[in-house]
């Protein structure tokens, strides 16, 4: 999710979007039945307006360590206020981006992570999510290597299970950032609907991750498999990663919101689950 600040790269990203569909004959992308055992989850049960379980989630507050929009020129100020992050009382986590003047920024939103509470190497990581929409809205479900404070990004590695641009509500994107292939050079693929959208119903986004592959799923569709030989640099995915959920507003990846962008915008997360593969 950290992108180099390059217009050229941006242009490249915006123009090289392609679709992958279940049913292609690529042997490499064949679905594999694997046995998984649930090891961690949050189903976001609780009363409306309550904060999610503090034993599981901590917050990133503000505009990032360099005050540069978390490295991406994102426009929002992240808070832990219930206006931006709360349970909805119907079993979902609601992360809400608002258009409001706050701490010098024109938008607020929230970003949660499990750093220090839960991390894991390998297994299946999934979340059931209904997207927000509108130009400049950039929700994500992703992971960072737990050693980020020692080796820094991108050496720690980044697995983007789902990213989405509000101006393309029928597309999601799965990516992998590592040393030598980060930012605009990340390994990425998109999955899309021709006559449906991700903001009208819940969908399950997942990766299945082992020593020699990371498989990207939307619902039951495997649309991308990345193997160590597919990355142009070091494979840094043999150590624990923690989970992140956020809704950004603006930034290099998504572009600016427009006057037509409806606010507020809420990403609803029904659950997040992590599994270990068992034999």
């Amino acid at each position, binding site marked *: 999710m950290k992108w180099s600040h390059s217009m050229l790269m941006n242009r490249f990203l915006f123009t090289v979007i392609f679709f992958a569909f279940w049913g292609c004959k690529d042997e490499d992308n064949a679905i594999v039945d694997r046995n998984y055992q649930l090891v961690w989850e949050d189903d976001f049960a609780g009363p409306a307006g309550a904060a999610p379980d503090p034993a599981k989630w901590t917050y990133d507050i503000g505009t990032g360590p360099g005050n540069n929009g978390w490295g991406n020129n994102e426009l929002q100020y992240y808070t832990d206020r219930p206006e931006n992050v709360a349970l909805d009382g119907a079993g979902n986590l609601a992360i809400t981006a608002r258009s409001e003047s706050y701490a010098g920024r024109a938008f607020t939103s929230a970003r949660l992570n499990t750093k220090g509470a839960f991390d894991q190497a390998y297994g299946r990581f999934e979340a059931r999510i209904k997207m927000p*929409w509108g*130009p400049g*809205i950039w929700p994500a479900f992703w992971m960072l290597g737990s050693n980020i404070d020692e080796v820094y990004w991108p050496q720690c590695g980044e697995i983007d299970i789902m990213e989405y641009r509000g101006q*393309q509500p029928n597309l999601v994107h799965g990516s992998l950032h590592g040393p030598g292939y980060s930012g605009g050079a990340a390994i990425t693929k998109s999955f899309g609907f021709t*006559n*449906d*959208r991700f*903001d009208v119903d819940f969908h399950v986004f997942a990766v299945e991750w082992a020593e020699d592959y990371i498989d990207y799923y939307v619902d039951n569709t495997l649309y991308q498999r990345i193997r160590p030989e597919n990355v142009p640099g070091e494979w840094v995915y043999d150590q624990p990663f923690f989970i992140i959920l956020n809704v950004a507003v603006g930034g290099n990846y998504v572009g600016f919101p427009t006057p037509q962008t409806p606010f507020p915008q809420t990403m609803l997360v029904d659950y997040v689950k992590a599994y270990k593969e068992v034999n």
Partner: protein
Amino acid sequence: MKNIKYQTSALALLATLAIWTVISCKRDIEDLDPASFPTTAEVFIDGFSAGLNYGAFGGSKVTAFDVDTEVKYKGAASMKFAVPDAGDPQGAYAGGSYFTAVGRNLSGYDALTFWARASKAATLDVVGFGNDFGESTFLVTLEGVPVNTNWQKYIIPIPDPSKLTQERGMFFYSEGPEDGLGYTFWIDELKFEKLGTLAHPRSFILEGQDQVFSAETGQKLDIGGLKATFNLPTGVDQSVKPAPAYFSFSSSNTSVASVSSTGIVSVVDSGTAVITANLGSRPAIGSLTVNSTGQAVGPTTAAPTPTVNADSVISLFSNAYNNVPVDTWNTRWQFSTAEDFDIQIAGDDVKRYRKLNFVGIEFSSKTINASAMTHFHIDLWTPDPTELPAAFKVLLVDFGANGTFGGGDDASHELSFTRPTLVSEQWVSLDIPLSNFAGLVNRAHLAQLVLSGDLPNVYIDNVYFYNAGPVAPTGPTVAAPVPTRNPADVISIFSDTYTNIAGTDFNPNWGQATVVSQVSVAGNNTLRYAGLNYQGTQFANNLDVSGMTHLHLDFWTQNSSNLNIFLISPGPVEKPFSLTVPTSGWASVDIPLANFAPVALDNLIQFKFDGNGDIYLDNLYFYKNGGGGTIPTTAAPTPAFNAANVISVFSDAYTNIAGTDLNPNWGQATQVTQTPVAGNNTLLYTGLNYQGIQLGSNQDLSNMTHLHLDFWTVNSSSLKVFLISTGPVETPFALSVPTNGWASVDIPLSSFAPVNLADVFQFKFEGNGNIYLDNILFYKTGGGTIPTTAAPTPAFNAANVISVFSDAYTNIAGTDLNPNWGQATQVTQVPVAGNNTLLYTGLNYQGIQLGSNQNLSSMTHLHLDFWTANSTALKVFLISPGPAEKSYTLTVPTSGWTSIDIPLTEFTPAVNLADVFQFKFEGDGNIYFDNILFHN
């Protein structure tokens, strides 16, 4: 950029229709089941789709549309639209609709889509679908569509596809020049699609607002602000304007307000109703809460008619005057919520304001010079509470010599009026001296009147400036009748006839607007209330009138529409009595003091009048009736009818119908007794509520003309007599009560229609109080339908007479007693007991053309003798050239010959007495006349 109306008439369509019909080779609709409609999605791909026609809108440039094979997005051709320059003589804009003769079933699609580009960046005024050049029931409009020189895809969502099962309007557009310049745009690949990527449908009424509207019964409100919004596949919301037919409207309370399928709300009663709507299965955002106050409360009587001479008036609004031009009665200035209505109250034009916070009334186009005026007058009526601090404010603005707002020469002043000047639910007349508008330093260029304050509902009338100086409203020319009561029985407040109680203050300052004066009327001192709102009278000492029975008062007014008198005892305890106004000459009233309960009659402190108009008062006194008794001390007058002409029910003077029950048990509370009064048997009803009389036998009264009654009461305030025939069929006749001594009444039996006079079997009385009755009988006049005696011979000195028709005098020569004015009346001269008499048979109207024009200036009266047994209406008119005529009503039918001497002043000023040339009679029945003459 031009706004286009889409109700293009069929004629306009025919005038400009350019029909394009292209047969598709891809689909053969002939093979389809005739009951279903084609689902063809394509409108224009590379040409017209099956059955598609084009019609240009009225006033548009008909040739604006063409098919272009060079510029296209895809395929072989596109639609090209050449928007004309402003002022193009062939049409001011490009616009038209593509429609089919047979509807298409579009319910399987969710949008109309197309690609478009233009020769320059521009904004299309409107595009859409559903315009079928007919009712366009399911019209959808997308406004303000940006286009540029690149091909872009456009999506017009269908608000509810299930509605479009046989839609004929495939696409329409309308676009005018941009900044006066024409340009070209192209549309291609125009088709309906099932995108599946339109999300988050929302619909709105009233732009999504929850509006609250104060309304009243009969009002109609249009639910506007209809909108349907979808999120496009680009994540951007797009809103279209759907026709009302896409929505289903509903009311939470249809007994208060109903709503039609087109969103028209009809308020039917008081209460609250919430109007909401659904689009498809989803509720629309926005609602209209109708708070209905029910039927509007307004005046039922006209405002007092102004009496100021028109020469002294500059009127803005009055039926009594010619009004000067007023630009507007509602300038609708910013923040003004006032709504104005022109209404009529009792035939009089009235301005009504509702939701009045302030309203500008402007006459700046032609300013008013009120320099010579002294007063501003306005009548107002409000249903709103007028308790303090509620105020009504009047602001006058003068624009100064430059005649326009500003410029340093403007002047204005505002006056505020509160209770007690303001009164709810009655006409209040404000006569405001212009000098009170202290800041209005000049008034030669008055341009605005601004009304404001705390009364949201105001009716106004008679808005005018006037000069009160030399011309005062007219008053009575004759004195009030001189009282005849024994001074020993009287406590007088204001009368020249009696010694008045000392020290009365006739104008205590109670904050009233009324101007009180004492004026001499024909030498008689009279109390005048000008511009009455209310007016008190303060007695010097508390007054004990408990020994009195009545309050007497004479009053005169031409312009009051409301007048009440109050007696007041400490507390204050007060009680009004309503006086009938306006009066015809002096009116006298004797009000039983019982009417003023619970006022303490032994401790009166004050009088009060309220109402409106200019009032003259005289002979205000209390008296006791008949020596203070509540029983008559004299017998009823003995009737003098020929017994042969009488059917008597209750009288000592005649033989009464045998077997009559004077107290049948009809459940009444009345006590019935017979009691001698001065030796004469009299019927007494005590504590009347109602009371019947059952005649001993059914009576045929066909030959009778009148019911005669004598009655006496000091405390009844209501009394009616009913005649009843079998059925029962009954009709009441109201008797004037209380009486001043015995009252005799002769009621024409025709008054009791539709009672069957051939079969009368009961009487009934209704009312209250204690009543003495005598000489209840029927009689017929004259014993027949022709007079048997001659009219009495007049005894005027011939030197003082100008005679028209009389044996006793020399008549004007050459008079035509039967000029042909188209009348139905038959005129004959017949001898009656040897005396020549003029007979009108079957009168509708009848003229008399005098032999020469007569100067009657020296005459004082018109004398007439007349006789009729069957006339129910008769008027005599005097006519001078013009013609100028005035009528005088004669009392009919008569009991024998009636002689009348009518003061000629009854016919003035309408008739010029120096130049009278005709008579006219109007009415019905057969009438005998004699001795038609003028005398002094």
